[in-house]
C-alpha cells in the first residue's frame, strides 16, 4: 500500500484511538499518559513507513499527516458535528454543589482531580466552586462562586 494511504490511515486510527480512550489521557495529566501517547505514535510509525527509510518516504508521510491535520481542523471549524466528534463538548462535572457521578465515571475523573485543578486557582474549599467543567482538551476549568 502506498505510504500516503498508510499515513492517512495511521492518522485516522490514532485520532480514533486517542478520542476513544478518553480526553483525560489525551490531556497528559499523568506522566504515564504521556508515555502512552508516545507509544501509540511509535507503534504506528512502523506500519506507516514500513521498510521505507528514504527521505522521500518520510517527506510523503509527514506532508500527508500535516495535510490531514489541516483538513480535519478546517472541517472542525466548518462543521459543528465534526468538531463534536473529534473533540467532544465541555462536560460539567460539578454544579449546584453536587458532583455528577455518571459523567465523572464516564470521564474516569475523581474528585481529587477536580480539587487539584481548583487548588491551582488558589481555591481552598469545594464550597467555593460554582462549576467544574472537563474541557475538550481534558483540562478541568473551575468557575468560582460569585462573592468568594
Amino acid at each position, binding site marked *: *500500500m502506498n505510504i500516503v494511504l*498508510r499515513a492517512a490511515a495511521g492518522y485516522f486510527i490514532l485520532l*480514533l484511538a486517542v478520542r*476513544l480512550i478518553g480526553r483525560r489521557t489525551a490531556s497528559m495529566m499523568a506522566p504515564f499518559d504521556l508515555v502512552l501517547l508516545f507509544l501509540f505514535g511509535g507503534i504506528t510509525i512502523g506500519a506507516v513507513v514500513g521498510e521505507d527509510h528514504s527521505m522521500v518516504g518520510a517527506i510523503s508521510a509527514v506532508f500527508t499527516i500535516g495535510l490531514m491535520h489541516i483538513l480535519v481542523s478546517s472541517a472542525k471549524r466548518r462543521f459543528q458535528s465534526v468538531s*463534536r466528534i473529534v473533540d467532544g463538548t*465541555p462536560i460539567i462535572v460539578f454544579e449546584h454543589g453536587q458532583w455528577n457521578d455518571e459523567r465523572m465515571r464516564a470521564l474516569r475523573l475523581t474528585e481529587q482531580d477536580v480539587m487539584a485543578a481548583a487548588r491551582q486557582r488558589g481555591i481552598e474549599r469545594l464550597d467555593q466552586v460554582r462549576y467544574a467543567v472537563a474541557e475538550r482538551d481534558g483540562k478541568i476549568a473551575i468557575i468560582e462562586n460569585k462573592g468568594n
Partner: protein
Amino acid sequence: MSMDDATRRLDTIDEELEVGFDQKFEKKWRRLEIGSQGVMVLIVLAALAGLFGRGPFSHRTHRTSDGRLAVDFEPLARWGTTTQVTVHLSSPITSSAAPRGEGATVQARVFVSNEIVEPLGLQQVIPQPNATEAIGGGAVYDFAIPPGQDSALVRFVLKPSTVGLVTAEVREGDAGSESLSWTQMVLP
C-alpha cells in the same frame, strides 16, 4: 450560521455559563465509546487467538487426496510481514535426472506458481534448492534428499507486497501430478 454563533446559543447552564455542553451528544458518544471499547476487546482477543495471523489458530493445512503432498499456510497474512508456507512431501517423486537408487542422493521436484514470487514476495527457500527452473506459470525447485529418507519438508518464507486475496498453487514433480492450491488474505 458559523460555529461561533452556534456555540454562543448552545446549552447555557443556568443562563449564565456559556459552556457549549451538549448532554444529548455526550450521552450518545458515551454509548459509542462503550461499544468501541467492546470492539477493541474483540480485536485483541482475535489477535491473541491468531485470527489475524501468528497465533494458535492461524494455520491451515491442505492435502492431496493421496496424502503425498501437503501445504501448511496462514490464511491471514499481513502486508510487509513475513509469513511461511511449508510444503510436506511424502515419498517424494524423484527427478528423472537422478533416479532413486541404493545409496544415491535423490532429487525431489516442487512446482510453485508465480504468485509465490509476486505478490506473495518470496524471500527465501529452505532448504536451499539445488536448482531452480522458471517454467510457464511458475518455477520448479529441485531439492536433494538424503538416501533412505521418505519425506521432505520445504519452507517458503514470504513477505507479501500487496493487500487482498491471493491464490497460489503447488505440485510435486512435473505437470500432470495432483496439485494443491491455497488462498491467503493479505491484511493491510
